[in-house]
């Protein structure tokens, strides 16, 4: 069978993902874009999203959220002020997004990296350690991401 990559606009795909998550399912999707480097690579990795109650979203979670009408990002929550969330991609040097906790479509629970069938779960030591180290290295992101781009991509 011929394999073909269909580029589906986010607004359509995420509409379907939203439907699935609202129905209580989890949804797996392929990552698009580089804003969650180093951990997640565009087109290579798959993320599993699960339903989440708005009030349960917390700092460090990776969420799929609607930051403007039909504009979605899969980024990390870096700040919470009441219902207002500030998001930032792990692979972004600056630039944050704001949304409400009710704009969160789903929360990342597992990452299938490099074609592996065994996922890295967000409650694993590996992910928690990565998160701590990566967030602590935020002032050096530009340099690390630059080296990564030159050496590994």
């Amino acid at each position, binding site marked *: *069978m011929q394999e*073909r990559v269909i580029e589906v606009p986010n607004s*359509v795909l995420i509409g379907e993902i939203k439907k*699935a998550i609202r129905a209580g*399912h989890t949804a797996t999707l392929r990552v698009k874009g580089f804003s969650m480097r180093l951990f997640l690579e565009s087109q290579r990795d798959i993320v*599993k999203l699960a339903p989440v109650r708005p009030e349960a979203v917390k700092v460090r979670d990776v969420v799929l959220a609607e930051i403007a009408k039909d504009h979605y990002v899969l980024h990390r929550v870096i700040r919470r002020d009441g219902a207002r969330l500030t998001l930032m991609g792990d692979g972004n040097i600056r630039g944050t997004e704001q949304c409400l906790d009710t704009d969160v479509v789903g929360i990342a629970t597992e990452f299938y990296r490099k074609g592996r069938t065994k996922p890295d779960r967000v409650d694993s030591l590996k992910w928690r350690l990565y998160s701590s180290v990566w967030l602590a290295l935020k002032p050096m992101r530009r340099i690390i991401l630059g080296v990564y781009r030159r050496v590994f991509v």
Partner: protein
Amino acid sequence: MKIKKGFELRDVCGEKVVIATGIENVDFSKMISLNESAAYLWQAVEGKEFDARLLADLLLQEYEVDDATALADAEKTIESWRECGIAE
């Protein structure tokens, strides 16, 4: 032969695609695109037992093709569905 449980035909962006909608997880990372005639066949036999003969008859009802072509296409369709793991 039957379409496996847990697969659903949906319209995504004007494309007819089959998505794995398990009890728990819906897999959007692998979507199988069907052309118009395959989507028609899928809808006609969803939830039913079928074989190449039945698919060929369905094609004959809908399209102006001769019996041999319809049967060959039906067999090809079954083969590719089996290969994708969406029918058994």
